[in-house]
């Protein structure tokens, strides 16, 4: 157990491992994303109320689910880096923020595009949309804080504290926004919440959620690799790596 733990703390080991993982995970992710999209776009029946526009669900919901999970991954990595002072956890935490922001952005944009044919407007101050918007702000806050610090080791610590504060706050924010919305809910807009989803629509959705998790992992590893090299640029193994490229 502890040897594994120490191995995770070793940059060259993690760099090589992530390279090996990405070699097969990246193609699998691409295939899964394409297959899931084709499944959802072409091989399912349209929703009887929303017609074909509901097909956006196959990217909207997975992006939203993984974006939220990503914040917890970031907070856990932050906690690990604060408690055990693990350099790799720092790097993982830093890598989560832009990916999470990108996924939240996807969820917001696709939700807005979905809203146009369904509700007739591009934007509704609905509880879920507002919460996602706040999540985007939280991610961008972490990125901004990290960039503001000159010393990247301190930046990572500060971001870890911020993401832990965010973890405590996210349930409160979600609940309060939910409650706020129920107080102000306009009668003209009806939501499909609570309606059951047909298995023929559910399976491709679950498949896409898995594909998005794989995508998150790939993007995380890719970002970590770039960051590892930059942080370790003075070490012999990174120089050897660069030299290898030059020789070949």
């Amino acid at each position, binding site marked *: 157990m502890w040897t594994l733990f120490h191995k995770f703390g070793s940059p060259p080991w993690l760099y090589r491992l992530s390279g090996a993982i990405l070699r097969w995970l*990246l193609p699998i992710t691409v295939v899964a*994303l394409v297959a899931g*999209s084709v499944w959802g*776009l*072409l*091989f*399912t*029946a*349209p929703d009887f109320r929303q*017609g*074909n*526009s509901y*097909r*956006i669900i196959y*990217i*909207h919901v997975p*992006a939203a689910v993984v974006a939220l999970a990503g914040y917890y991954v970031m907070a856990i990595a932050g906690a690990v880096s604060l408690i055990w002072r693990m350099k790799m956890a720092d790097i993982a935490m830093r*890598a989560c923020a*832009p*990916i999470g922001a*990108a996924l939240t*952005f*996807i969820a917001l*944009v*696709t939700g807005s*595009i*979905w809203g*146009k*044919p369904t509700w007739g407007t591009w934007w509704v101050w609905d509880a879920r949309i507002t919460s996602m918007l706040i999540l985007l702000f939280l991610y961008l806050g972490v990125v901004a804080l990290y960039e503001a610090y000159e010393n990247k080791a301190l930046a990572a610590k500060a971001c870890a504290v911020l993401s832990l504060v965010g973890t405590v706050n996210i349930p409160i924010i979600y609940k309060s926004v939910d409650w706020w919305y129920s107080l102000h809910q306009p009668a003209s807009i009806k939501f499909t919440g609570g309606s059951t989803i047909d298995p023929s629509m559910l399976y491709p959705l679950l498949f896409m959620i898995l594909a998005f998790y794989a*995508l998150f992992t*790939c*993007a995380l590893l*890719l*970002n970590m*690799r*770039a960051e590892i*090299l*930059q942080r370790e*640029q003075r070490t012999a193994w*990174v*120089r050897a*790596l*660069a*030299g290898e*490229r*030059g020789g070949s």
Partner: protein
Amino acid sequence: MYFESLAAVVQMEGHGAFVWSAYFITIGVIVFMVYAPRRREKRFLRQLEGQIRRAEGGSPPSASKEV
């Protein structure tokens, strides 16, 4: 397959513009998400490689200007 022809797939009974634009924006963001760190890594390695070659050249500072 639910749709009968390619035209029907593109049209999606009037919702095509929404569905396809959502998918294409997503593809764009995902490609950027995967491509940006790879480019950062490649560029960094190339820079470092140049640095090492210049250092190994061992020549006086004037030579380093060539690269």
